C-alpha cells in the first residue's frame, strides 16, 4: 500500500519523469500503430524495431554518447532503411512479403548484435549499458531522455491530428485518395517516418524485441470496441498509456522486474479481455447474439405453432392443450417451458395447467411469422427457381430475420399474393395493406 501511495502520488521526481516519458511514448506508438494496423502492416513495425539496433550501435561508435539525442539519428536511419529494403524486396524480387519482413528483421538484428558485442569488447568508456536497448531499461532514463520522448510523442500526435482526414482516406481507400489528388506517396512516407520515429524512441523503454507490441496490440484491442477511426485512436492511446503506467508501477514495486515485458503483458491481458468481452467483435458478444437468436426463434416458433392450430378451425382465440401443441410441432419440455414463460411475460399468450391461449397481440405475431414464412417460400420458388418441396427448410430459418421493412418490400414485390407454393393461404394482418 505504501509503495502504491508513493508511486501514484508522484512525489518522487524520478518516478514522475519516467512514468510520464513511458506513457507518452506508449501513447505515440499506439497512435501510429492504428494506421499500421489498418493498412495490415503491423509486422513491418516488428522489423523496424529490430532494425534499429545496428543504427544505435553505429551512432554510438560515432558519437560515443548514450544520450537519446545522440542515438536517435542512427536509429532512425537504419529503421527507415529496413522499410525501404522490405518494400524493394516485395516489389522487385520474387520474395513474398512475409519472407522479406523476416529476413530484414533477422539480418539487421544480427548485424546489430555483431556491432553491439564488438563495442562491448572494445572497452570504450561509456559503453556499458548499451545492451539495455535489447530489453529496454526504463528506470535508467534521465531527465533529458524523457524530454526527447515527450517532445517527439507530441510531435507525432500533432502531425496525426492535423492530417487526420488524409490519413484516414489513405488507410481505408488509397485509390480514392489518389483520385482526389492527395499526394499519396508523400503521405505514406510521412506515416512510415512517424512509425520509425515512434519505434526509435520506444526501444529505450521496452527494447527492440517487444517494441512491436506497443504498435500492434493497442490498435488490435481498440478494434474490438469501436468501428470509428477517431474513437479507435483515442482508445488505443488510452490502452497504450495505461499499460505504460501499470508496467512502470509493477517494476517500481518489485525492482527486479523488467518494465518492458510488464507493459507488454498488461497490454496483452487487456487485449485478450477485449477479444472476449469487446462490444463489436468480442466472443461473448457473439455468443450473446447467438443465444438471442435461439430464443427469438424458439418463441416465434411457438407463436407460429399456435397460429397454425388456429388455422385448422379458423379460431385463434381458443385454448390449445399441451398435447395438441406438441403433436403439431416437436418441442422438448424444456423448450416449451422457456418459450411460454417468456411469451406470457410479454403478454402474447396466457398459460394454465391445460394449455396455452394466444392474446390478440400474440395472434398477430403468429400470423406475421406464418405470412413471412409463406412469402419467403414463394419468393424462393419465383426468384431462385426452387422446386416447391425444397423451400420449407430455408423459410424455417429466414422467417426469423426478416425486418418489417423487408417484410413490406417482399409483400410489395410479390404483389400481395394469397397462396404460397403449397397452395396454402398467405394470411395478412389488418394493418398490413393499409400501410402502403
Amino acid at each position, binding site marked *: 500500500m505504501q509503495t502504491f501511495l508513493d508511486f501514484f502520488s508522484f512525489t518522487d521526481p524520478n518516478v514522475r519523469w519516467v512514468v510520464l516519458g513511458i506513457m507518452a511514448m506508449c501513447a505515440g506508438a499506439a497512435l501510429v500503430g492504428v494506421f499500421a494496423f489498418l493498412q495490415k502492416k503491423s509486422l513491418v513495425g516488428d522489423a523496424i524495431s529490430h532494425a534499429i539496433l545496428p543504427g544505435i550501435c553505429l551512432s554510438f561508435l560515432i558519437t560515443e554518447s548514450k544520450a537519446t539525442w545522440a542515438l536517435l539519428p542512427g536509429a532512425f536511419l537504419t529503421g527507415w532503411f529496413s522499410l525501404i529494403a522490405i518494400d524493394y524486396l516485395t516489389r522487385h524480387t*520474387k520474395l513474398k512479403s512475409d519472407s522479406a519482413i523476416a529476413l530484414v528483421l533477422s539480418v539487421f538484428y544480427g548485424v546489430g548484435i555483431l556491432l553491439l558485442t564488438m563495442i562491448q569488447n572494445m572497452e570504450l568508456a561509456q559503453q556499458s549499458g548499451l545492451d539495455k536497448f535489447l530489453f529496454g531499461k526504463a528506470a535508467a532514463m534521465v531527465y533529458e531522455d524523457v524530454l526527447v520522448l515527450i517532445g517527439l510523442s507530441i510531435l507525432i500526435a500533432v502531425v496525426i491530428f492535423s492530417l487526420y482526414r488524409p490519413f484516414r482516406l489513405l488507410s481505408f481507400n488509397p485509390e480514392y485518395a489518389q483520385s482526389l489528388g492527395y499526394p499519396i506517396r508523400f503521405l505514406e512516407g510521412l506515416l512510415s517516418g512517424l512509425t520509425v520515429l515512434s519505434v526509435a524512441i520506444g526501444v529505450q523503454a521496452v527494447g527492440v524485441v517487444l517494441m512491436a507490441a506497443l504498435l500492434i496490440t493497442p490498435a488490435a484491442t481498440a478494434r474490438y470496441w469501436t468501428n470509428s477511426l477517431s474513437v479507435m485512436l483515442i482508445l488505443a492511446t488510452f490502452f497504450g498509456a495505461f499499460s505504460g503506467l501499470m508496467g512502470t508501477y509493477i517494476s517500481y514495486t518489485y525492482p527486479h522486474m523488467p518494465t518492458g515485458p510488464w507493459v507488454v503483458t498488461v497490454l496483452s491481458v487487456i487485449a485478450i479481455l477485449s477479444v472476449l468481452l469487446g462490444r463489436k467483435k468480442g466472443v461473448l458478444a457473439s455468443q450473446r447474439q447467438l443465444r438471442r437468436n435461439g430464443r427469438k426463434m424458439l418463441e416465434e416458433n411457438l407463436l407460429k405453432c399456435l397460429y397454425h392450430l388456429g388455422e385448422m378451425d379458423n379460431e385463434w382465440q381458443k385454448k390449445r392443450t399441451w398435447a395438441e401443441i406438441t403433436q403439431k410441432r416437436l418441442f422438448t419440455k424444456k423448450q416449451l417451458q422457456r418459450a411460454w414463460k417468456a411469451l406470457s411475460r410479454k403478454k402474447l399468450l396466457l398459460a394454465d395447467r391445460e394449455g396455452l391461449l394466444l392474446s390478440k397481440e400474440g395472434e398477430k405475431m403468429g400470423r406475421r411469422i406464418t405470412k413471412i414464412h409463406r412469402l419467403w417460400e414463394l419468393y424462393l420458388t419465383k426468384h431462385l427457381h426452387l422446386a416447391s418441396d425444397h423451400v420449407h427448410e430455408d423459410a424455417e430459418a429466414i422467417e426469423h430475420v426478416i425486418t418489417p421493412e423487408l417484410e413490406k*418490400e417482399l409483400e410489395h414485390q410479390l404483389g400481395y399474393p394469397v397462396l404460397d407454393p403449397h397452395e396454402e393461404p398467405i394470411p395478412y394482418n389488418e394493418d398490413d395493406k393499409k400501410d402502403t
Partner: protein
Amino acid sequence: MIQQVANPAIELHSLTVAYQQKPVLWNLDYTLPAGKLIGIVGPNGSGKTTMIKSIMGLVPLSSGYVKIFDESLDKVRSRVSYVPQRGSVDWDFPVNVLDVVLMGRAKPRRLFSRYSSQDKEIAMDSLKKVNMEAFVKRQISELSGGQQQRVFLARALAQQADLYLMDEPFAGVDASTESTIMDLLKSMRAEGKTIVVVHHDLQTVNHYFDWLVLLNTRLIASGPTKEVFNSEALTQTYGGKLNILSRVGDLVKEKAHPLREK
C-alpha cells in the same frame, strides 16, 4: 429454367455456402448430366469458384449436400479431378513442368513411396496431349500464362478421372491455345468423361457447351445450352444481385443468424 436429369454426374441438394456468415451461394439445387461438356457462367464474385470448391469439399457447407456419381465425395475421389484457378498458386515455386504434372499421380495412400515409371509415362503422355512435351524440364516461372494453364490441364489429365472440374481454364489464354484446349476437352467428352468448365466468354458459350449453368449467388438456369442461353436468362444473371436476397444476406451476417434451424 432448371432441368433435372436421371443418373447425374453431380447432384447438389439445397447447397448453401457462407463466408464469415454471409451467404455467397444460396440454396443451389440441381443435377448435371454425365458425359457432357458443361459450362458455368456468371459475373465476377457470383460464386462460381466457391461452387466448384464446395463440390470438392474444400469449403464448409452451411446447408445441403453434394453427391458425385450418386456417392459421397470420399468414395469417388479418385474419379474426380480439380483444376484450380491459375492464380491460386505461386508460379515462382521451384518446380519444373514435369514435377507439377506428376502431382496428378499422387495418392494419399502412396504418399510415402516414389512415383513409379508408369506414373512418369502417364505424366509425359498428358503433357503430349496438351502440346507441352517440349517444356518438360522448364521451371514453371518461365512459362507464359497459356502454358501455365496447359500444365494445370496436363496435371488433371494425369489423374485419369471421369469427372473434371475446371476453374477458368481459358483465362489469359490466346485464341489458338484456346482452340487446342477445346479440342482436347471434346475428345475427352468422346471418351465419356464429364467436364465442368467455369467460363467467362459469352461469345463462345454456344459452340463450346452441351449444358449450361447460369449462376449469380442463386441458380438462374441449368439445362441444355440451346434452351437456357437466352437474353432473358442472361439479364437475370448479369443484371446484378437480387435486392431482397442480398439484403437478407446482409442481415444474416449482421445478426449471425443460422441459415438452417439446426
